[in-house]
């Protein structure tokens, strides 16, 4: 190698190092343990895409002055042990100030170290109310309402829209899991407050196939509304079909994971009248925030821009929260640390998300806003049945 070439090489190396050093200064690192494989992969892939896209979008639009987001994600396989290992690995390799996690399990397992050692802002795919507790989980927040809040939205809707005379009757139909049982105690209390009668509570395994006895129980209780919790798909279609066969006129409702377009595709004509609560707007709505998201997708991923499921929007919204918190910290002239981010997050109130979700703010580390939607089978989409409801 000639001397000149050597000099050039050294100069290039130095320049890279200098750039690297500078980049570290105006960089906000976001790490994520995403369930790209495993039984939650159907959502994990989309959440990951949504979160990554929003951070890139924020960089492109320069939403946080003088700062750039870098995103590191790894697959954690929806397995708590592996997810904790992945969490520690990302923290050790990149030391981000913001983390994303795959599940309620990870949130619980990492909490002691998150509070005492890592102190980074943390959000996850979970809507479990246990993680929305500033006393025990000061650094973690829900990027939406908790499942209990979602029940709150539905129960409020039911109380305002009774069928016939007398107290409206509702049945809770949930799975025998943490995901299924999480909101139930609160929902019972809330129903009593709102004057809604809980006519039946039915518990099954996730993905139960034979639901004959459960349908008969529904027939006996004759509820006006049934709320599903703790399922993604099965056995919701089976229960709805079975109930229709028995001539039940009940309105069936679901929470976040069971109000995606797939349920209409799966049920066909039986989906008519199916309702649910969604914390976010759907892909095809016309609010400015949603249009901006679609436009960005048309530009960056033209192949996927036709439709994106709710989990993508969940990831996108989580990104919005991260960016908003960081923007506030930077605007206040403070260093971007987990502590400052969590304080900035708690101060977000009356926030306009461009219609991606309702106007609102963070209350005990969650964003308790949601909207009731009804399936329109002909168009194959969900349409709003209420305004944005904030749960108090």
């Amino acid at each position, binding site marked *: 190698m000639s001397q000149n070439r050597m000099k050039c090489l050294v100069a290039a190396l130095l320049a890279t190092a200098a750039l690297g050093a500078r980049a570290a200064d105006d960089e906000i690192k976001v790490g994520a343990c995403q369930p*790209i*494989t495993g039984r939650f*992969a159907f959502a994990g*892939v989309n959440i990951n895409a949504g979160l990554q896209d929003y951070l890139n979008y924020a960089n492109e639009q320069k939403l946080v002055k003088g700062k750039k987001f870098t995103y590191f994600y*790894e*697959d954690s*396989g929806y397995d*708590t*042990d*592996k997810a*904790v*290992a992945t969490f*520690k*690995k990302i*923290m*050790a*390799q990149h030391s981000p100030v913001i983390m994303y996690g795959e599940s309620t*399990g990870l949130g*619980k*397992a990492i*909490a*002691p170290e998150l509070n005492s050692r890592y102190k980074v802002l943390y959000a996850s795919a979970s809507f479990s109310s*246990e993680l929305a507790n500033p006393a025990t989980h000061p650094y973690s927040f829900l990027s939406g309402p908790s499942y209990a809040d979602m029940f709150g939205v539905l129960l409020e809707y039911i109380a305002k829209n009774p069928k016939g005379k007398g107290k409206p009757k509702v049945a809770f139909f949930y799975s*025998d*899991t*943490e995901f299924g*049982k*999480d909101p139930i105690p609160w929902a019972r209390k809330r129903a009593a407050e709102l004057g809604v009668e809980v006519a039946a509570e039915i518990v099954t395994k996730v993905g139960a196939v034979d639901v004959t006895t459960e349908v008969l129980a529904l027939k006996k209780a004759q509820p006006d509304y049934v709320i599903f919790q703790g399922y993604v798909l099965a056995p919701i279609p089976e229960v709805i079909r079975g109930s229709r066969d028995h001539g039940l006129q009940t309105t069936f409702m679901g929470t976040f994971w069971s109000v995606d377009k797939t349920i209409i595709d799966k049920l066909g004509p039986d989906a008519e009248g199916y309702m649910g609560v969604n914390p976010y707007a759907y892909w095809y709505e016309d609010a400015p925030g949603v249009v901006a998201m679609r436009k960005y997708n048309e530009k960056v991923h033209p192949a996927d821009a036709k439709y994106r499921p709710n989990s993508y929007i969940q990831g996108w919204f989580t990104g919005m929260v991260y960016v908003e918190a960081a923007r506030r910290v930077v605007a206040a002239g403070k260093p971007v640390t987990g502590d400052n981010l969590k304080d900035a997050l708690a101060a977000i109130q009356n926030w306009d998300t461009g219609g991606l979700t309702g106007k609102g703010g963070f209350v005990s580390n969650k964003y308790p806003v949601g909207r009731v939607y009804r399936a329109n089978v002909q168009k194959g989409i969900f349409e709003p049945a209420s305004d944005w409801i904030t749960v108090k």
Partner: protein
Amino acid sequence: MRIGDYQESYAADEALFRTPTQRVWLMAAGAAAVVFPFLAGDYLLYLANLVGLLAIGALGLNILTGFTGQISLGHAGFMGVGAYTVAIAATRLSLPFWIAVPLGGAAACLAGAVVGVPSLRIKGLYLAISTLAAQVIFEWVFGNWTDLTGGIRGINVAPATFLGFAFDSDRRIYFLIHGLAALHAYGAANLFRTRVGRAFVAVRDRDLSAELMGVNLFRTKILAFMVSSYYAGIAGGMWVYFTKVVTPENFPLSLSIQFLAMIIVGGLGSVQGTLLGTVFITLVPEGLKVLTQAVRPFAPDAMSYLFPLRDILFGAMIVAFLIFEPHGLAEVWRRIRRFFALWPFPK
């Protein structure tokens, strides 16, 4: 190089580690294990702790399945019994860990004695199904006896402390976990040099002949279940102090199956094989992950295909193992040792 097998006393003849080579390597491994936590980062330490915990559990299952021939699909359930006992003892009764963990072992041991009763009448696949039932029952109890187990939310536990010293970091608890793992591996290796252990093996090889030779079948089988679940209980108990939270979802059927995979890949009826199998099943997926991560800069969009590919590759490795090395990693290890016994001279 080893050139002979001279023993000068009965004690030397009966020693667990008989050759100087073995002893030197064992000491080297021990020293490496002591130094490791001071060199390794968080991530490696966490994985090492996981391996240590699972190794205790897998040793238990190998005692039952590999040495006594009683197949069990309820091993994770026993681990759960130990874990919940420890969590309840530590939170409600405020017992220190050095009482709570043995208590967890004892509770799992009792549960094992009960679940083991049908083993006298049923064998093989039928026994597998009856232990599967135990797994389901345990899981149900963990999730639904809310007053005792905290239901789906589980129980949060403070770190283990001993005389004011808190085992609150991965490094500190490493010594506790690996100390216990070493102790239990040593116990298992010795067990099969005793009458009880040999009775286990006799039952596995031919239970009728064993009975004719004076082995009390009922007692032996129950004892095997008890010892095995005791190991699981200890593993579960340490698990609680390791993760500091216990929920019903920590001990699913898939974990029971993972334990079976460990002892099958490692080698049924081999203590060494169990340890190797645990390392293999726990670390190979992580290793494959590192490989897929390495590809990322070149194909950033291919990740959603590459990640699932890793699982397929892992499955293929297990199948390949069963076909080409049915005696497991223990046999591979033995071959390596035999090769080096005369090294550098040819056989």
